[in-house]
C-alpha cells in the first residue's frame, strides 16, 4: 500500500513536469499563415541606420501595397549579435524573409552553404545591371550569378581632419602621397600634438593598413591580394608594413583601448589632426554638431574608391518569396536608395541618383563613385570572408603590441593561404 502511494505521487509529478515542458514548446509554430509579412533581418536598431531603414520601409509601404514589413532587427556588437542569431536560424531552416549582409566576399559563406538564392534574372528585369557601375556588378557576381541587392555604398579610404589643428600647423593643402603625409604629420607633431593620427583597436588598424597597401601596391595588385593573384610575401607588402609601422608611431598609444568613436573624439577635441575611417564618419560628425572637419582620400590612393556595401538577399526557403522580391526591388530602386541613403549618410549604389538630394560630402563621394577605380575592403567584408577578417584583425592586434613586421607578414600570408580558396 505504501509503495503504491509513493509510486502514484512519483508518477503524477513526472507527468506534471512533462506536461509543463510540452506546454512550453507547443505555442511557437503558428503565425506563418497568410504570409503577407516580410521579416527584414538587420542590425540597424538606432541612429542614422534606423532612420535609413524607416525611410526604406515607408517606400516599401507605397511600392508594395498588400505586404507588411516586420522588423527583425537584432541590436548590438556592430552586427556580431545579429550574425550569430542569423547563423543559428539558417541552420535550423528558419530563415527570415530577407537579411542584411555585407556585399562581396562576406556573402560567399552563405552562397557556399546554399543559403541564398540566385537573383540574376531579377537584376535584368529591374534594370539594375544598367543602374549600378560595372565595377560593382563584377564584384557582386559569383560564377556568373548575383545573389544580393546593395542598399548603399560606403567609402573606407578617407582621412578626416580637424581643420583648425591642420591650419595651426601651417598646412595649406592636402597631402597626395605618403611622403607628404609624413611631412604633414611631423608639422602637426612639432606644434605639440603628440599623436596627430588618431586610431582605435584592431579593425581600425586593419583599415589604415589596407589604405597603405593600396598606396604601395596600386589598386590591381591590392585586389589581387584577396583573390589569390598577388602574393602576400611580395616585397610591396613588406614595404607597406614598414610604412604602416612608421604611421603607427604617429598614433595614440592607447589605441587598443579605443573604438572608432573614441578616436573620432580625439580629432573633435583637437588632440589629433587626422583619422582614417569610413565615410559614415561624416554623418556621425554632423550628428555630433562638429562642423570644422575636412576630408581627403588616403594619400597615394589616387582615384581608388575602397567600397563596402550593405545588401539584402533572398534566403532559400523564405516563407514569403514574393514579398521578399518586392522588398529587394524597392531596395534597388531609385526611390528606395534615395529614401535610405539620404538618412543613413551613405551614397546610393545607383549611378543615376540626383546629387542635389544629398549633403555636401556625399555629393563628392557620388561623383567619385562614378569615375573611380573600385576596390573592396577586408575590414568590412567586401574583400574577404568572415574567417579571414577575424584572422587579419587578430594579426593586426598582435602587431599593435609587438611591432614585429616579419610576424605580421607571415600571419597575413598564412591567413591568405587558409582562406583564399574558400
Amino acid at each position, binding site marked *: 500500500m505504501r509503495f503504491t502511494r509513493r509510486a502514484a505521487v512519483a*508518477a503524477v509529478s513526472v507527468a506534471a513536469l512533462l506536461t509543463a515542458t510540452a506546454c512550453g514548446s507547443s505555442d511557437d509554430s503558428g503565425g506563418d499563415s497568410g504570409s503577407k509579412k516580410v521579416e527584414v533581418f538587420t542590425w540597424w536598431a538606432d541612429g542614422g541606420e534606423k532612420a535609413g531603414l524607416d525611410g526604406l520601409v515607408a517606400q516599401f509601404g507605397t511600392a508594395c501595397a498588400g505586404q507588411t514589413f516586420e522588423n527583425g532587427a537584432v541590436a548590438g556588437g556592430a552586427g556580431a549579435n545579429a550574425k*550569430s542569431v542569423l547563423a543559428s536560424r539558417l541552420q535550423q531552416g528558419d530563415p527570415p524573409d530577407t537579411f542584411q549582409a555585407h556585399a562581396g566576399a562576406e556573402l560567399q*559563406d552563405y552562397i557556399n552553404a546554399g543559403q541564398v538564392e540566385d537573383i540574376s534574372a531579377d537584376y535584368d528585369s529591374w534594370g539594375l545591371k544598367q543602374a549600378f557601375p560595372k565595377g560593382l556588378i563584377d564584384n557582386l557576381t559569383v560564377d556568373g550569378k548575383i545573389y544580393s541587392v546593395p542598399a548603399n555604398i560606403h567609402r573606407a579610404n578617407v582621412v578626416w581632419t580637424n581643420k583648425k589643428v591642420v591650419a595651426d600647423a601651417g598646412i595649406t593643402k592636402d597631402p597626395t602621397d605618403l611622403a607628404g603625409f609624413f611631412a604633414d604629420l611631423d608639422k602637426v607633431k612639432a606644434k605639440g600634438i603628440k599623436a596627430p593620427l588618431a586610431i582605435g583597436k584592431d579593425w581600425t588598424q586593419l583599415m589604415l593598413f589596407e589604405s597603405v597597401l593600396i598606396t604601395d601596391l596600386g589598386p590591381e595588385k591590392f585586389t589581387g591580394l584577396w583573390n589569390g593573384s598577388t602574393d602576400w610575401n611580395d616585397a610591396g607588402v613588406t614595404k607597406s608594413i614598414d610604412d604602416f609601422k612608421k604611421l603607427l608611431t604617429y598614433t595614440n598609444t592607447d589605441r*587598443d583601448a579605443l573604438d572608432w568613436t573614441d578616436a573620432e573624439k580625439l580629432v573633435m577635441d583637437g588632440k589629433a589632426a587626422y583619422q582614417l575611417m569610413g565615410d559614415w564618419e561624416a554623418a556621425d560628425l554632423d550628428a555630433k554638431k562638429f562642423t570644422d572637419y575636412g576630408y581627403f582620400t588616403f594619400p597615394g590612393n589616387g582615384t581608388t574608391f575602397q567600397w563596402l556595401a550593405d545588401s539584402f538577399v533572398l534566403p532559400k526557403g523564405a516563407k514569403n518569396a514574393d514579398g521578399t522580391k518586392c522588398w529587394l526591388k524597392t531596395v534597388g530602386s531609385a526611390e528606395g536608395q534615395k529614401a535610405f541613403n539620404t538618412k543613413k549618410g551613405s551614397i546610393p549604389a545607383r549611378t543615376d541618383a540626383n546629387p542635389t538630394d544629398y549633403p555636401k560630402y556625399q555629393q563628392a563621394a557620388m561623383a567619385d563613385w562614378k569615375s573611380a577605380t573600385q576596390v573592396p575592403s577586408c575590414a568590412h567584408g567586401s574583400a574577404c570572408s*568572415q*574567417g579571414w577578417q577575424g584572422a587579419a584583425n587578430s594579426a593586426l592586434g598582435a602587431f599593435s603590441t609587438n611591432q614585429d613586421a616579419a610576424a605580421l607578414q607571415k600571419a597575413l600570408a598564412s591567413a591568405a593561404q587558409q582562406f583564399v580558396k*574558400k
Partner: protein
Amino acid sequence: MRRLRQWGPGLLLLSPSLILLAVFVYGLIAWTTKVSVSDEHNALGSKGFVGLENYTKLFTDDINDRFTHSLKNLLIFTVVFLVGAMFFGLLWAFLLERGVRGEGFFRTVYLFPMAVSFVASGVVWRWLMNPNTGENAGGLNAVFGALGLDFLENKWWTNPNWGMAAMAMPAIWQLSGYVMALFLAGFRGIPQELREAAAMDGASTYRLYRNVIFPQLTPVALSALIILGHMSMKMFDLIMSVSGPQWLTEVPAVYVWQTLLTSDYAKAAAISIILLLLVAVVIVPYLIYTNRAEKNA
C-alpha cells in the same frame, strides 16, 4: 521486483532531471566532441572525420600562435586572480574573526561587489583602467596623477606582458568578499573546545592559528580555490566588457566565441573541449577527494 519497489519511485522522481542532464549536458558534450574531430570549418557542414587534427593544429599551426597566446593569458589571469582573491578573502575573514566592531556592516560591504554582474563592473573598470598617462590620463591614472603618485600610472590591461594581471583586478575586487564569506564560515565552524584546549596547553595566538585553526580550514580553502579556479578558466564576460574581443587580452573562452562567429565550428568545438578538459583537471580530483572524505566521515 522487491528491489525495483525499493529504488523505482526514487528513480522515477529523478528521471526528468536525469533526462535533461543527459540531453543538455552530456549529450551536448558528446556532440561537441564529435564536431571537434570533424572538418566542419564553415556553414557547409561536415565532410568527414579528421581525428585529432583540429587539436594539434591549435598548438602547432595557429596563426601567430593565437591559441597558445590565449592559454598564456589565461594562466596569468588565473594565477593573479586566485592568489589575490584568496589573500584578500583570508585577510578580511581573519580580521572579522578577530572581532572587529560592526562585523555585520563590513561583511555586507565586502560581499556586495559579488552581487554586481561582471558586465556592469567591467564597463566601470574599463574606464578606471584607462591606459593613458600624463596629461591625457583618465580613471585611476588620473587619480594617481592628482595625488602626485605619477610613478604608479601604468598601461593596465594594454601592457603586452602583464596586462592580464591588471585584468584580474576587477575579478579579485568582485570575488574576495565571497572567499571571505567561505573562510568566515570555516572559522565559525571550528568548535570552541579546540581553542580552549589549545589555550589550556599554553599555545600562543600564533601557535593557535598555525597549528589548530588553519589546518581545519584546508577543506574550505580547497573549495574556494576550485570555485574561483573554474570561474577563472571560463572567464568571458569581464574580458568582453573591459577590452572587447582582441588579441591582447584573448583567452580561450573569447577565442571560442570569435571562432564561432566565423562559422568555424570544428575549431570552436576543439577549443571548447580543451577548455572543458582544463576545468575537469581541476574539478575531478576535488570531487574524488570530497567523495573519499565523506565516506571516511
